[in-house]
């Protein structure tokens, strides 16, 4: 377990260093998220009643499209750089490669989500600085990253990888997306554990199941 964590953190540190140096993934997905959020302002008049009703949906539509774009690049960049073999050659448990990449994806998504919070406030007067909303968002982000990291590794060996990831990812991640949107709505309605707790439990259960499953099958996913 210690070896797995050490290797995972090594990969994670390398990814963070590369991203801080190039900023190629963060900037591209952030720009995309802003565009999605901005376009919705033309679709309807954002009255307080309407925002209260559909705000959580807008937030998660922007975040989930952004997540798909960002996760697609997780293994694609390694594949394009030719460094995926370098990771596969390492004498470390395969779940360490998964865990390292998962941490990178979670960090990227949390960074984008955090940087988008002021945008939602400005565009929709929608304050997301709510502890229950943030708890739901973090739990859902882990679930999204758990599924997305696995499917990103599957898709990287295929020709239609850009299409394949959303096709595989969205149906499987549906429970966590439903939980995220519903939990967010409850949180923004001012509900506490009584309203949010059930959705949060659903998301956390999903997280645990997919973290375990993905770790177990990742060895086979990496095989050519």
């Amino acid at each position, binding site marked *: 377990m210690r070896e797995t964590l050490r290797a995972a953190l090594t*990969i994670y540190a*390398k990814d963070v260093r590369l991203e801080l140096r190039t900023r190629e993934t963060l900037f591209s997905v952030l720009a995309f998220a802003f565009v999605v959020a901005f376009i919705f302002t033309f679709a309807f008049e954002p009255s307080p009643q309407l925002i209260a009703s559909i705000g959580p949906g807008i937030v998660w539509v922007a975040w989930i499209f952004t997540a798909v774009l960002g996760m697609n690049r997780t293994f694609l960049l390694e594949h394009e*750089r030719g*460094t995926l*073999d*370098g990771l596969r050659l390492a*004498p*470390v*448990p395969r779940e360490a490669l998964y865990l390292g990449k998962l941490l990178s994806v979670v960090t990227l998504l949390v960074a984008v989500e955090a940087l988008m919070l002021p945008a939602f406030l400005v565009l929709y007067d929608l304050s997301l600085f709510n502890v229950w909303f943030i708890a739901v968002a973090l739990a859902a982000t882990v679930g999204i990253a758990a599924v997305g990291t696995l499917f990103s590794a599957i898709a990287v060996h295929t020709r239609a990888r850009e299409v394949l990831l959303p096709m595989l990812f969205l149906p499987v991640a549906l429970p966590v997306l439903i939980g995220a949107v519903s939990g967010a709505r409850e949180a923004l309605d001012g509900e506490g554990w009584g309203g949010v707790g059930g959705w949060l439990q659903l998301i956390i259960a999903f997280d645990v199941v997919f973290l375990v499953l993905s770790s177990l099958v990742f060895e086979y996913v990496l095989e050519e």
Partner: protein
Amino acid sequence: MTEQSAPTTPRSGHALELRGVSKTYGSTHALRNVDLDAAWGRVLVLFGHNGAGKSTLLRVAAALIKPTAGSVATAGFDADGHAGRVRAATGYAGHGTLLYDDLTPEENLRFYARLYGVARPEERAAEVLRDVGAERWAQRRVRGLSNGMQKRVAIARALLHRPALLLLDEPYAGLDVQGRGFVDAVVRAVAAGGGAVVLSAHDPALAFALDGDFAVLRGGRLAATGEAAGATPDEIAALLSAPAEAA
């Protein structure tokens, strides 16, 4: 080029043993029933035209891909059940450098040293960079280095964990005389240190220059093996140009 050649892996039998190894990609047969041994302290040069199966054989030996049939043992470890040990015993440098272009050679080697669990990764990275003559470029981004220098760093990466078996896929490709001399020195040092080297090449004279063994692949089949001392470059060239057997 001496220190990195000291293998740290328990060894037995041959450095590499392939028995009945086949590899297919869909309907393409990359390797067909190959039996091949590489001895400790020796250099084995794989010859073959493009598509003969050299790269596939090296990738199978490095536990990067699993054979469709047959067994592979590296440094005494069965690749099927002990892929991790095989990877720890093997250093592999392929067509690509496996380096991150936006990191420096030093950062790349430190990353890989940590990933391989090498003790004192910073010191080891500096040591290997010195060994391959790349310490002057250690702080530059890889993307700014010449092809020859990138290749040196790529080989340094393969040597970081002091592998018992070094696998090099066309290491001489695109190198000038100085670069070829560097690869020669690395290969000789690993073999002289008791390790083994398996490399692929196109020039039959190489096996003689390295005083090694050779194997000729044609159409995924092993067409011939032998010691360089028992053949001439022309004979190897003739084996290479013989028509491939029917599928």
